[in-house]
């Protein structure tokens, strides 16, 4: 018997889902990011308003004072959807594990002087609570914001912050005994130098507008805190004084901040650049929010800068503050 093998090419009838094709153009291949993001936001047929907020629909763009004709325009330049985000973070987690192993197997923690280590833990441990606050806030942005393109990365961001809090905890356990965690919490609750920052974090918990919360948390506070603590303090100051081990154990944080800055910037830029007539009002609101929250954050971080860097603290803080202002101006805010 003869079997005749033939190849036959079957071309797909359509490249992607109809609702994605409407947005990217008929007959064009859509990326996985577009397929995972477009059309994810429930927009109609809500039937009942939530009993906890009868002024709004269950999903309602008017929860924010920012007006956008198209909330799907707030694209994430990293193009993260669940799979790409988890794969990226898994790779980074491997690098972190390797760093911890390197520090532990060579006893590098012991090479740090006691004063340096104590000070490092005094600065970093209360930041676990700041990271937890950032987790809460970004979960709130995800819950009350509008449009999957905006809310999905906010949820990733929330989980990233939880991971950062865990990394700080692990660092503390690698460098000292478990009771430093309690000491850190007591400092967060009682020490005078942390109270401004704690008030900032707690005040953001009750912000109703998801975009204002986004500006207060992701642009203003994180935009100052990460360059100050992980840039100026850990990477510059500590490494010079024999604390390279600490820079290795926190290597994820500055890397993560650089990466997420691109997302935060893209969101603000798109809101400012929205089509007239919304643009002017959006710009004014964002500028006002940024001024208010960046001012408060700078004030709240002043004692932390001094705790970490002593007399050089004020100079470092004004440097990161000027850098953040320049960044905001570049995004189109009217500073």
């Amino acid at each position, binding site marked *: 018997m003869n079997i005749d093998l033939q*190849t036959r*090419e079957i071309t797909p009838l359509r490249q992607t889902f109809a609702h994605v094709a409407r947005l990217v153009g008929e007959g064009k*291949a859509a*990326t*996985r990011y577009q397929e995972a993001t477009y059309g994810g936001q429930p927009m109609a047929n809500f039937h009942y308003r939530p009993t906890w907020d009868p002024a709004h629909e269950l999903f309602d763009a008017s929860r924010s004072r920012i007006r956008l004709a198209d909330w799907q325009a707030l694209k*994430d*330049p*990293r*193009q993260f959807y669940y799979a*790409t985000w988890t794969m*990226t973070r898994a790779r980074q987690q491997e690098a972190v594990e390797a760093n911890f192993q390197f520090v532990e197997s060579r006893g590098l923690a012991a090479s740090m002087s006691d004063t340096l280590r104590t000070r490092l833990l005094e600065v970093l441990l209360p930041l676990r609570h700041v990271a937890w606050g950032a987790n809460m806030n970004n979960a709130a942005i995800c819950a009350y914001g509008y449009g999957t393109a905006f809310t999905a990365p906010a949820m990733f961001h929330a989980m990233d912050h939880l991971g950062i809090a865990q990394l700080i905890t692990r660092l503390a356990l690698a460098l000292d005994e478990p009771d430093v965690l309690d000491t850190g919490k007591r400092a967060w609750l009682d020490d005078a130098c942390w109270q401004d920052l704690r008030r900032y974090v707690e005040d953001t918990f009750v912000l109703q507008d998801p975009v204002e919360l986004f500006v207060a948390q992701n642009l203003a506070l994180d935009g100052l805190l990460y360059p100050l603590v992980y840039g100026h303090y850990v990477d510059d100051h500590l490494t010079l004084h024999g604390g390279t081990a600490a820079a290795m154990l926190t290597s994820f944080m500055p890397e993560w901040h650089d990466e997420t800055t*691109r997302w935060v910037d893209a969101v603000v830029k798109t809101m400012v650049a929205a089509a007239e007539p919304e643009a002017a009002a959006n710009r004014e609101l964002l500028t006002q929010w940024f001024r208010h929250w960046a001012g408060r954050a700078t004030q709240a971080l002043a004692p932390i800068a001094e705790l970490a860097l002593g007399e050089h603290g004020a100079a470092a803080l004004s440097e990161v503050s000027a850098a953040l202002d320049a960044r905001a101006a570049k995004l189109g805010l009217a500073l």
Partner: protein
Amino acid sequence: MSQVFIAFQANEESRPVVEAIVTDNPEAVVSYPTGLVKIDAPGRLTIRRETIEEQTGRPFDLQQLHVNLVTLSGQIDEDDDQLTLSWNH
């Protein structure tokens, strides 16, 4: 002028690479033989890391493209930032 070409498996990972090639090489012609993406270009074809990174928004190691690379023709000039096919040597 002789043609150079490069072909990848047609999948999600190779798509940003193909898009970057089309952006950087206006004369490139893309065809889709079964399961593949084949890009022909007259004389010269360059793949630039930077353009791929613009497409994906993430850092890209040019070595990653070898995972999906099926075949190519042309002499290769490769470094960390670009891979060029040509018949110059």
